[in-house]
């Protein structure tokens, strides 16, 4: 799998703060990757730099093998749909026509069927659309461009749950037919998790997690039950979180569970609940995983 996006040592400094701090990531061609993190973590800055709309302070950025900045050849093969995109005072249909001239792989049939699904009419002035309808237009352009590199930055401001589901379904369906590289930033992790092959989590300008989504599922388990039994199972193992209430305890334990672990849990009356991707990402974004996921966890006991 060749890399569609390759970033090495990327730093972006503004006058009073560092938005991206020595970031290195690789996104494989033909994958859908989730770009996750809290507000202000640096997701938008990274996407803007990948889209050639902003420049790195230092480091190297390669999109489809070349620097995207002021590079017409790369920019025609790349689409960037972002939250609150600004448009000139034109109609929806005119915006689609302009996009069709710019993107060589543009599919106007797909564009009109998406607009239909979202209930946006082509003869409406963009300035008079609601926030959600403007998001729908951005998503339509992002998908119908069929660009080799498709960047979405929280593309669904103002869209309700039904419309967001339309977006996920249409993205998956069109991706299956026309594979491309999709990088999607979102804070609705639970909703979008099943779309992702890879996950990149950014926190305060640094990459704190970069892994295959399916590897993360089941990597951590909440162990709950009698405090002494919890300690017996989790003692000496990496732990993310401990809680205790009277004789009951609840601990998030990292690492795969062996059949013996399950047997021990069963016989001592412990509940085992695997953490969802969303819960793992929250732990990562909260800085629990940084700097090294394998080490540095507290290992003391929960019971006094």
């Amino acid at each position: 799998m060749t890399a569609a996006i390759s970033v090495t040592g990327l730093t972006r400094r503004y006058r009073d703060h560092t938005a991206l701090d020595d970031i290195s990531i690789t996104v494989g061609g033909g994958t859908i990757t989730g770009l996750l993190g809290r507000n202000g973590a640096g997701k938008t800055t990274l996407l803007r730099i990948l889209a050639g709309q902003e420049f790195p302070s230092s480091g190297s950025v390669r999109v489809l093998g070349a620097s995207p900045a002021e590079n017409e050849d790369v920019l025609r093969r790349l689409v960037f749909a972002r939250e609150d995109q600004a448009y000139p005072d034109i109609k929806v249909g005119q915006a689609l026509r302009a996009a069709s001239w710019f993107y060589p792989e543009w599919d106007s049939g797909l564009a009109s069927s998406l607009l239909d699904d979202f209930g946006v009419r082509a003869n409406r002035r963009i300035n008079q659309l609601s926030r959600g309808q403007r998001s729908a237009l951005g998503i339509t352009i992002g998908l119908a461009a069929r660009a080799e590199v498709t960047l979405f930055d929280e593309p669904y401001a103002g869209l309700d749950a039904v419309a967001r589901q339309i977006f996920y379904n249409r993205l998956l369906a069109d991706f299956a037919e026309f594979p491309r590289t999709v990088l999607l930033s979102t804070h609705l992790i639970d909703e979008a998790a099943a779309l992702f092959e890879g996950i990149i989590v950014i926190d305060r300008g640094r990459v704190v997690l970069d892994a295959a989504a399916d590897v993360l599922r089941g990597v951590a388990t909440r162990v709950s039950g009698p405090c002494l039994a919890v300690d017996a199972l989790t003692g000496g193992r990496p732990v993310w979180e401990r809680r205790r209430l009277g004789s009951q305890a609840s601990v998030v334990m990292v690492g795969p569970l062996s059949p013996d672990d399950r047997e021990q849990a069963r016989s001592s009356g412990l509940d085992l609940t695997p953490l969802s991707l969303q819960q793992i990402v929250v732990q990562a974004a909260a800085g629990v995983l940084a700097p090294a996921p394998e080490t540095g966890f507290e290992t003391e006991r929960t019971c006094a």
Partner: protein
Amino acid sequence: MPEMAGLDEGTPLFAQVAEKLAGEIADGGLAEGERVPSTNELAAFYRINPATAAKGINVLADDGLLEKRRGIGMFVATGARQRLLARRRAEFTQRYVEPLLAEAARLGIDTDELIALIKESGNEREGVSL
């Protein structure tokens, strides 16, 4: 994630896809020699990434439960159902009997009482199905 059609978020999705397909083969829903849904069909049904669905299919193919016919797709291999049923039988004690015994012990139900309960439930089931 309500839209993921029967999968849950806590374990690898590819393993769950493999498990669901294996379950269908064992139950006879997918007969031997029948074509298995394609990667894209599975991705659309479960609303998951096609690469994840492909990985699930590959688990069963690597296990010899599915066979590839070039240019047509994946098919259920001969003997797949029997192998899956034999495996489930082998796991029956560990997956069902042992937890049952553990819970019974916790509640102070002894083995004779447990056997009586099982017989009683069995009779009720048969009564219903008749």
